[in-house]
């Protein structure tokens, strides 16, 4: 099977969908001739023409607004926001329009727009190229929120997102675009070719949305993670020696509550990991959901391991980043709790 990194897998998903469905169009800043600042759309304009792979003005609100209009006219736009940090200018179009159109028209109108955005830190991007704003979008009803952790999932989930009848916010953890990352910046970078998730079929396949995946079976504690943190959590588990079950959420909203809670009811412990700031973050929802469903089986407090409640500082990425040590410490704490 072909080996792909996450950029190639996303490119392949877009390629497959442009090929199969004439109503699919790509739009975004620098996505056309140039192929995207992260190369995710490389070669697609040449292959499908500048009518279907559009370079746009630098106006995120305009991009999403125009995509909604295209969606209303039966197209399936896939737009790229160059960095998740730059989704805010499009926030009104996403929240008030994209997420509400089907509801407010009782199904008469809708726009099946997919909004891709690279997120997360660890690339020396400073406070405006490192954010993980998923917790802002998961609170918005009417949209789905997805974040893959490897190339295979990225392609399958992106294809499902584009084929989905609902709008999807598709977060791409840019730190793992070219290889898995276990949270140790000093270590030599590992390519996706060295990871099973790097084996990606060339053709069309979908991975159902709203299905979490158990990436490591375990009995003592359940670790909930997504995106980059799935790999960091794995390193932390090895380091801690705790027999943890690691669940990769893959889709954040609507959430696969059953898989999560079944696991925590079994293990009796839960550690939630994300890179985003802690206060009011998506980890809070995970904690509340698990607590409500698993209260009587909990042997220890549910812990959240996250970024600090500060912007992502350029000079202190690794002091900010919830690395293996911070996670391992939490694993140890929940095991020792009693």
């Amino acid at each position, binding site marked *: 099977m072909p080996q792909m990194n996450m950029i190639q897998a996303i490119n392949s998903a877009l390629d497959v969908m442009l090929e199969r469905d004439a109503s699919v169009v790509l739009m975004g800043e620098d996505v056309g001739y140039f192929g995207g600042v992260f190369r995710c759309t490389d070669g697609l304009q040449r292959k499908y023409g500048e009518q279907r792979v559009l370079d*746009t*003005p630098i106006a995120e609100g*305009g991009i999403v607004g125009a995509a*909604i*209009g*295209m969606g209303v006219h039966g*197209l399936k736009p896939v737009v790229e926001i160059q960095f998740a940090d730059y989704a805010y*200018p499009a926030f009104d179009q996403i929240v008030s*329009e994209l997420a509400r159109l089907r509801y407010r028209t009782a199904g008469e109108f809708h726009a099946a727009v997919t909004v891709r955005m690279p997120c997360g830190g660890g690339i020396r991007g400073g406070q405006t190229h490192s954010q993980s704003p998923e917790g802002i979008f998961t609170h918005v009803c009417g949209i789905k929120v997805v974040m893959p952790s490897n190339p295979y999932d990225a392609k399958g989930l992106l294809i499902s997102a584009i084929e989905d*009848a609902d709008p999807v916010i598709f977060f791409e953890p840019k730190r793992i675009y070219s290889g898995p990352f276990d949270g140790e910046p000093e270590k030599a970078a590992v390519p996706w070719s060295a990871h099973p998730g790097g084996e990606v079929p060339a053709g069309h396949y979908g991975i159902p949305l709203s299905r979490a995946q158990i990436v490591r079976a375990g009995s003592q504690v359940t670790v909930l993670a997504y995106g980059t943190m799935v790999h960091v959590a794995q390193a932390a588990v090895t380091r801690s020696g705790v027999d943890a079950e690691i669940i990769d959420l893959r889709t954040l909203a609507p959430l696969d509550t059953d898989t999560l809670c079944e696991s925590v009811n079994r293990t009796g412990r839960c550690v939630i990991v994300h890179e985003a700031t802690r206060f009011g973050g998506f980890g809070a929802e995970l904690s509340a959901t698990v607590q409500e469903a698993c209260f009587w089986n909990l042997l220890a407090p549910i812990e959240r391991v996250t970024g600090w409640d500060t912007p992502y500082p350029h000079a202190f990425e690794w002091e900010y980043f919830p690395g293996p040590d911070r996670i391992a410490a939490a694993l140890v704490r929940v095991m020792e709790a009693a």
Partner: protein
Amino acid sequence: MMRDSRLHVPHPPARPGQTPDFSYLQISPAGALARPEVTAAFTDIELLATGMVRVLDEQHQAVGPWNPHLEPDELQVGLRHMLLTRLFDQRMQMIQRQGRISFYVRSLGEEAVSVAQTMALRPDDMLFPSYRNQGLHIARGHSLVELMCQCLSNTRDMCKGRQMPVMYHWGSGNIFSISGNLATQYPQAVGWAMAAALKGEDRIAAAWIGEGSSAEADFHHGMTFAAVYRAPVILNIVNNQWAISSFQGVAGGEQRSFAARGPGYGIAGIRVDGNDFLALHAVTAWAAERARRGSGATLIEPVTYRASAHSTSDDPARYRPRDDWQAWPLGDPIERLKQHLIALGEWSTQRHEQLVAQLEAHVVECWMQAQQSGTMTEGPRLDPRTMFEDVLATMPPHLVRQRQQLDRELLAATQDVQPT
């Protein structure tokens, strides 16, 4: 702390108690402006953006190159639509005052904008209205019963009770949904038009916002995308002089017409008498033809006056002279078209009164029918459980659970016990 302020703050010409003053309004004589080719370069027609296209003169004659030469029966249809819009508004306003709907917005004095512009477009052109464009629905023949049922949030409400009154839509009539958030439809209309062009269709899109809303980001987004991709779209800024309590000067109209924004972006801009049915029709037909020919978008500023309160929640006596509208130099669009038809010998006061009576009866008749599907107080009521539908295409498990919880609550309420 401060020396004398040097900050400029725009003012309306008259506040309550003062005499109305519209001397700020630049009005070209009817017939004065040339009508260029629809393919003309926007740079060659910039005068259209600051002048005012007008066709009906003081003697109610249609004059000048912009005269669309419409058939009398077309004019009569237009008059009928405008009248129906006004009578519909009157009735719904009354109904709101009676507390039978929660809210209403009239278009009194601006009826020509929606009606004439819609009539100048094809039925399959896609319209993106604001909340003051009920005339679009009426001109396209949307049943008043449907509109009333939406206002009633009743069992026949196209929005299933989810939107405030007047937030209509009409899929089969090619009229888009109205958003509570101002101006969002601008880039959406442009995107729709881009899709039409992409598909090789010759359908076009048209969008309406108020002059106040033109300050929102989405005005800029719509204009930029329309200019860059030469989208087949008509973007309208309905300058009715007021945005709730704030005068058009606060929106940026003090120094410059809103139509003049067009040439700034490389888009044709036309300022038009918004109470002149013929001028509106001609200008819109011109812009539509321009768009269909692939010459790109046009920004149209119909200049009119919001004769009514902003909405049933507003009291304009707090911020403008009561008799402002009476002094409005561009008059009443219905009266002007009526007088034109009479001057043509195609209409009479008597026929007019008959028509009014007939339409009033029709409105009442529709209201009777609408109530059959329930009012806020009597008759059938929408099932609250539908509130969980259409959030997503298929209902996710957590909403199924929440609906079940509501079931229990509703059951408990009828049995008046604590749900659990």
